[in-house]
């Protein structure tokens, strides 16, 4: 069991031993970093390709149809076919666009989403770069993505993409605040920013120590998940590329490989955010029987499945509703969540749960009652004329 759990770590050791024979000593640390980088560089695009396949299959099944099943059995080669198609597609640069930013934007979008992977704890001591400020790095890098999307939208000089860029800007900034607040509670309780320590703090009792089972943990998890769905621009928050309103938003003028990069950034972001949500609240790679990296995969898969499930069910928010939802509901909920976590931390066991849930429930009902948009939704009765 132990060998299966540490499979990839042993693999890396074997490669290093093999390389030791002919490489000079000082180069070895570089080699070990190189190995983990190549591991991520192979793993990330692969997950991206098969996430697109999974999304089309799952949404297909939800709509009483099969989803891709022509290319390869069960459509497994479909992502490869998409990749080739994207490569061969003509890469159109609009006349008015300023070429430098137009070219740079897709690169600047993919780089942060790949950087996110370096901090994720894939399994027991399988984090690529074990920073002791892992979480802060994760949030800092994800804010760069916003800028790149703006660059893309602004550079392609077309009214729709500009609208998309402005919307992306506003949305991502206003959803980063509740995201950070929900993460603050976990950091407060664990006392450290490194993802390794956060996962260790949730071990024990066969999974009951996961943060999601504490009241503040559950609210934090919901906040984190909702904000990550909006950070990654997926339904119901996909107004930057609202197909039905502004054609394709910020990536209207992108085709061929550049569009594929935007597409890849979206899916890498979705995977990275779900993985981080699993690490923070669902106990990362903690789990009774299966090897640690499998537990991590399972939890992330469930969260990614929910993201796809959301995409198959919901219409889109309007821009101002989105903003008011973030600032009037998620932001105050984040604050009350910190308060609840603080109280939970200092009061003894039975009382802590009661106080924390009481505060959170109070704020939830108060906020949704207070919120003007909330009150207007009423169920209507219709009169009939004979």
């Amino acid at each position, binding site marked *: 069991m132990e060998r299966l759990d540490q499979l990839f770590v042993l693999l890396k050791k074997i490669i290093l031993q093999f390389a030791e024979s002919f490489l000079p000593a000082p180069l070895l640390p570089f080699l070990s970093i190189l190995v983990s980088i190549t591991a991520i560089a192979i793993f990330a695009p692969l997950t991206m390709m098969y996430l697109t396949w999974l999304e089309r299959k799952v949404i297909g099944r939800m709509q009483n149809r099969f989803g891709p099943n022509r290319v390869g059995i069960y459509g497994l080669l479909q992502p490869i076919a998409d990749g080739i198609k994207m490569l061969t597609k003509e890469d159109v640069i609009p006349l008015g666009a300023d070429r430098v930013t137009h070219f740079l934007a897709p690169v600047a979008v993919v780089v942060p989403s790949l950087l996110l992977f370096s901090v994720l704890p894939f399994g027991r001591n399988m984090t690529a770069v074990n920073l002791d400020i892992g979480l802060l790095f994760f949030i800092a890098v994800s804010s760069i993505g916003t800028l790149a999307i703006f660059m893309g939208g602004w550079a392609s000089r077309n009214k729709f993409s500009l609208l998309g860029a402005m919307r992306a800007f506003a949305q991502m900034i206003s959803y980063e605040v509740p995201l950070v607040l929900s993460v603050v509670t976990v950091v407060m309780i664990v006392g450290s920013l490194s993802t390794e320590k956060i996962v260790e703090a949730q071990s024990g009792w066969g999974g009951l120590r996961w943060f999601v089972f504490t009241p503040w943990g559950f609210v934090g998890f919901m906040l984190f998940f909702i904000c990550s769905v909006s950070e990654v621009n997926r339904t119901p928050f996909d107004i930057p590329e609202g197909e*039905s309103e502004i054609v394709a938003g910020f990536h209207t003028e992108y085709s061929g490989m550049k569009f594929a990069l935007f597409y890849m950034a979206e899916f890498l972001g979705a995977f990275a955010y779900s993985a981080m949500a699993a690490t923070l609240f669902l106990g990362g790679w903690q789990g009774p029987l299966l090897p640690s990296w499998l537990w991590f995969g399972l939890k992330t898969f469930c969260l990614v499945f929910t993201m796809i499930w959301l995409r198959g069910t919901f219409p*889109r*928010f*309007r821009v101002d509703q989105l903003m008011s939802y973030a600032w009037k509901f998620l932001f105050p909920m984040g604050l009350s969540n910190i308060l609840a976590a603080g109280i939970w931390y200092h009061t003894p066991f039975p009382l802590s749960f009661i106080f924390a849930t009481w505060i959170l429930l109070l704020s939830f009902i108060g906020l949704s009652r207070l919120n003007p948009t909330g009150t*207007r939704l009423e169920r*209507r009765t*219709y*009169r009939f*004329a004979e």
Partner: protein
Amino acid sequence: MFVIWLLVISRTEMDKPETTLDTQMLEVNIGPQHPSTHGVFRMNVTLDGETVVRLKPAMGYLHRNHEKIAEGASYLASMPFTDRLDYICSMTNNLAYAIAVEKLAGIEVPERAQYIRVIMAELTRLVNHTLLVGFLLNDLGAFFTPTLYAFREREKILDLFEATSGARMMCNYMRFGGVKADLHPGFMEKLKEIVENYPRFLDEFEKLLTENEILMSRCQHVGILPKHLAVDASATGPLLRASGVDYDIRKVDGYSIYPRFKFRVPLGSVGDVYDRYYVRILEMRESIKILEQAMKEIPPGEFISKQGATGAKSPRTFRPPKGDAYGRIESPKGELGFYLVSDGTPNPYRYHVRPPSFINLTILEDMCLGCKVADAIIILGSVDIVLGEVDR
């Protein structure tokens, strides 16, 4: 202390804003080629930030000169062209044209043909409303799921049309004085099956949509059409009834055998996008009631009158008397009327179509002023226009 000082300053400072921060107006063409304009329809929208300040619709991209062609052809020859008017509900277009010509030429329609026509018209209403709700959700951003549920139900009804009239969408099934062919043998069983599990589908649809908070917050109090404006602009159909005006031509005119059926007409209260969506769902439930009654009472007998059959056999000899007639029905989109002027020759002297979508579209700007770009798209979707009918 610091904050109060700031507030005091702001009160005095802000009274005379010399440099108002005025944003630049953005002129956007939500153009003929756009994912959610239900066909080739252009809206020239002036935006201030996100809110719509001015909206000028531009139509005519799908003009096929239908009315002039009809003047050159015989009466029966333009029957297949009426399928192409509102290409989602071709049976009701045929019915409206057939009723107009029957009024012009004074042709009697046998009982069985009347029942067949009512069954076909109500099935088309189900198809149209289901599709509309699906496409409205598409404009709202739901990734095709409601639309594909709607298509799944629509396929069952289109299979019925194909088995009876020969084609799924371009049915060309009605003739002056009845219908082209009798119901095919397996029709009644399939119809019973559809009518039985359609309410179940509607419940599932409502469970997915009506209580959905995002849909409610996106559609309620958006694109409100006040009652007086709807009446002044002669809007008809679900758009009018959603604003609370009780005007359904099946009740007002009582054409063909609709007075025999017991059904109710749902009316909205506020007249916003949510009301239009829900009024259509209730109308579908009423259509199912009509279908149930029609299925029980359909008599045997001939499906086309003697005079109608000879007319269909040799259209050139079909010469309606001199004069004019205006026949109208309650098509799923509103009042669809045909105005025919005959000068005794086999070709109509004047052939005019009163399309409900075109007339409902004239008040698009009044509904869209002051709302966001995203709202303008769903208001257009809720008006339910089909460009074939708008541009003719």
